[in-house]
């Protein structure tokens, strides 16, 4: 009788279990079937009403039923949970093609990035960085560099004068040559001299009143024009690529003798000729030369014993060539739409 009842309960519970489709109904089913007050648990407790002869069989069956229902429950539970999870995930999918949220990344100004590259290359080549002032005396900017007052060579630099006579904004980083020589004499020197320079010029797409320059200076007892060529060729390879052609041609600077201009094969047309290189295939990258004996002397070095070379290059111009920037005003204009591309 009781056994029958047990089997009925078992069968009914099993049917109910199969129909349970949510975690909630499963939970209710478990409470009502196998919980403390559940149907099966209640029946179990009635074992005491049975005669001793029926007890073993009933007990055995009870255990079987419990075990089976428990197993069926676990099975159903996994099924329902999986289904539920899948339904939930199906409902809250993302449009993965929406744009990501950009955290605002900081960036160095492109002029700084180019300067850093120049610092690194010259650093690798044994040149240290020496800085000097922006507001200079006429003496350091011109006279000590073999450019006397009224000398026609002054036409090469359009100068900002200050209201203080003899005080100007440096037109190039070359005055740093004298500062460095006077500080280090009679040691050998290998330095680069970066800094902001100023020229009295209309601000246009191609010319600025303020620009960075990096001067280089090497002084020693056995430095020649061949060393200058070798060293600058090395720099050009590191800066512009191993296979990029370069050429040196004679030029004029009052503070170097012999003087030269270094051209690099145009990186936009690979030397075929284009608008940027004015169809020459070459880009003017830097001016250079052997330090003029007068300048060495003004720095404290005896030109009969010492020699050296100097060069000057423009980081903004290099950046313009490298990145295809057509307007130099973008640098100090600081439009974020420009800066963010670096």
């Amino acid at each position, binding site marked *: 009788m009781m056994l029958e009842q047990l089997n009925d309960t078992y069968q009914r519970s099993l049917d109910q279990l199969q129909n349970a489709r949510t975690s909630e109904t499963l939970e209710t089913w478990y409470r009502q079937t196998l919980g403390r007050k559940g149907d099966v648990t209640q029946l179990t407790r009635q074992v005491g009403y049975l005669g001793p002869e029926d007890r073993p069989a009933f007990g055995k069956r009870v255990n079987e039923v419990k075990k089976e229902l428990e197993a069926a429950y676990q099975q159903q539970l996994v099924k329902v949970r999986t289904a539920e999870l899948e339904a939930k995930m199906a409902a809250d999918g993302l449009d993965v093609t929406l744009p990501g949220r950009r955290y605002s990344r900081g960036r160095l100004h492109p002029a700084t990035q180019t300067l850093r590259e120049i610092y690194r290359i010259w650093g690798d080549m044994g040149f240290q960085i020496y800085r000097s002032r922006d507001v200079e005396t006429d003496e350091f900017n011109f006279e000590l560099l073999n450019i006397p007052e009224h000398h026609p*060579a002054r036409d090469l630099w359009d100068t900002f004068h200050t209201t203080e006579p003899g005080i100007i904004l440096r037109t190039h980083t070359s005055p740093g040559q004298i500062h460095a020589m006077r500080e280090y004499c009679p040691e050998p020197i290998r330095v680069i001299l970066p800094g902001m320079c100023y020229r009295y010029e209309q601000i246009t797409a191609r010319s600025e009143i303020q620009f960075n320059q990096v001067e280089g200076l090497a002084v020693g007892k056995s430095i020649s024009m061949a060393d200058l060529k070798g060293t600058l060729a090395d720099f050009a390879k590191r800066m512009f690529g191993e296979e990029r052609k370069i050429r040196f041609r004679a030029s004029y600077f009052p503070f170097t003798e012999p003087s030269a201009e270094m051209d690099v094969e145009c990186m936009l047309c690979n030397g075929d000729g284009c608008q940027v290189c004015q169809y020459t295939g070459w880009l003017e990258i830097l001016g250079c030369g052997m330090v003029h004996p007068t300048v060495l002397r003004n720095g404290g070095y005896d030109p009969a014993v010492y020699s050296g070379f100097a060069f000057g290059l423009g980081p903004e111009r290099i950046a313009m060539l490298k990145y295809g920037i057509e307007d130099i005003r973008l640098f100090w204009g600081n439009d974020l739409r420009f800066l963010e591309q670096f």
Partner: protein
Amino acid sequence: MRVPLSWLKDYVDITTSIEELAEKLTIAGLEVTEIDYVGIPGGRDLERLVWDRDKLVVGQILEVKPHPDADRLVLAVVDYGGDEEEIVVTGAPNLFPYLGQGDLSRLELYSPFALEGATLYDGHQEGQVKMKLKGRQLRGIYNRCMLCSEKELGISDEHEGIMILQGKYQSGTPVQDVLGDAVLEIDIIPNIARCASIVGVAREVAALTGQKLREPNYEVLQEGPPVNKLVRITTDEPELNPRFVALVIEGVEQKPSPEWMQRRLRLAGQRPINVVVDISNYVMLEMGQPNHTFDYDFLRRRADQYDPGGPIHIHTRLPEKGERLTTLDGITHELPPFTILVTDPVNPLSLGGIMGGVDSEINDRTTNVLLEAAAWNFINIRRSMVALKINSEAGFRFSRGVHPSQALLGAKRAAELMRLYAGGTVAQGIVDYYPNKPWQSPIVLTTAEVKRIGGIDLSQVEIKRLLESLEFKVDDRGDHLVVVSPDHRMDIEQSQDLVEEVCRMYGYDRIPETEMSDTLPPQRSNIGLDREENIKDLLVQLGMQEIITYRLTTPEKEARLLPVIKSQPDDRPYITLANPITVERVTMRHSLLASLLDIVAVNRRFQERMTFFEIGQIYLAGEEGLLPDELQRLALVMTGPHIDPACDGDREQEGLNFFDLKGVIEDLFSAIHISGLAAEAASHPTFRPGRTARLLVNDRQIGWLGELHPLVVEVFGIHGDWPVIAAELDLEVILPLIPDEFQVRAVSAYPAVLEDIALIVDRGIPAAEVLNIIDKAGGYLLQKAELFDVYEGNPIPRGKKSLAYHLTFQSPDKTLTDRVVRKNRERIVKQLERQLGATLRDA
């Protein structure tokens, strides 16, 4: 300097292609920036007209006959080398004089002649428009050929008549072979003024290609009266005017110069005027000596005032006070005291070496010419040109140095050309006043010096040969060379100058490339720069964008930072430009912030969120010396939403505020290991009251931080409702505080105990003061005290606020007991109660 190849060939044989020649010159320092091809193939401009060799030929005009039906047209009979003569209908005014004169063959009248199918520029259209010549009826006569104007060939804009070629030609010769040319545009650098002439360039070409220079003929046939009866020369200033050569040419005829001379002048970029002026210009372009022509009769009339019957007296001197001169361009100049004048005893005549005066200028009625060829001090010429704001071809050359030796050659050359082409008679003798003859001092040069500076191994013989190619006189003395510069050079002062010439002639491209073998100097790092660059990197890591602004600004722009008191950011004077190029950039900045805020205002049009910094100098006029202090500053600005809005949710956007920028600065200082950064409430006219902090490190002020005063935001035109937070820090103080090294604390292996306390204190008590007391009272076991909540309002009494802290206690060497922690906590609370009257909120 424009150098027509056809002209250059007068003085040197060209043995290479035009392009190779240009390359050689460029490497040697005469940079060819452009090659203009005329009528011949070459160059990159594919649109340019190249003359057909078989359809554009030289034709001889044999007869000019009237057109039967038109008065304004004539018929020209032309022999162009074909089987039959061709009859051409033309309206060229310069053929009308020959009308009806019968056979013209004895006149040898040649012109460029285009046959049907030739491509030309259309003479009747503005600019250069190509057209193909087609046969057509012209007033009843079929016309299939054409005599060409200069415009139709693309030589000039001249379309008044047909181009008449002077000289002897073979009919049928391609025009290319007669008029085809290439013009080299050469950039003349300041030390090669000697090459600002065709002969000067030819001399370099000869040296570079191993050819011989053919100098022009400097001889002159003199058949007039003795010149010293006509003119005498004196000077006050032999230093400024070392030489003055004068010649007189009588009976010149005012007419156009020969066709070939006009063509050369045009190709060289000069407009032909008349034969006297053209010869003057031609000689300057040809051999580099500028010269000047005066109307002799004008001077003669004046001489009769001061020395009747005597020679005219030309005197060079400095101006008298208040003296003025009107130059031939019509401008009257106040004369600076150092500008040398050519005068007669009555008046100044010209600015020596720069420009002639209007009074004594050659005019239509001039028949007798006084020709001046002089030498001037180049520095004084440049100084005068700058002061007078004059540019002239003569001044360009003299300001870069023309050797006095050239004056005599130039004078003779010009006089001879005037005799030949202007029909003049040259007076006999030359007035050559040469008070200050320069001395070319011999310079010693050795192979060792060429090796030491130039880096090339050359024998003495080779060096000698290279220098001699440029006309240096070289004496081989066995172990060294003694070198004397040629007369035309003024730029050789020492052996290093000679090394440059050797290198140029050897070829810069052939100098070897070597690595420096010299001692490597002691390696020093630049600590200041390293620290600055490190700060830039750290700020970039913290999400800040680097900005670089102009260092030139105006006091007005910077005064906007102080809108209420309207003064400048620093009391010390500005460095001010004497010659600003724009009113926007007049003084060197006192502050980075003003420029940075302008950049914010500009970018606000496209961008809500900005976090900027700049590192750079400010400039304060020196207190004692003349040079200013250049001081490194760091400025930071933040404004806009916390993060850029994304599209995936409507999260409420909170604006960046005071504490965001303060957090960046705190992070920066912890990264550079400077401890003791503190902020104290302060007031500053740039910043909003109550949201302004003075930043200190160990009681030393390092800068300001705050939310910008709303008036500042307004005056800078920064749109939007977001607050703008800014700071300017003094790197001169901060950089030296950065320690070279720092120590790391051990990380304790024992558990930490966390305790929270919430206090109620007076509203006005700064959080920093509370934290300071907690830190002191907490002792060494208090690892960290962290403020996590600030609250005002119910149930906190008015005038009070609640501050809540996480306290972390930890011992380096044992596990803390509850008792020890409790004791420490009680000590902290007690100190807070005693010093601030704080009460525990949960007590």
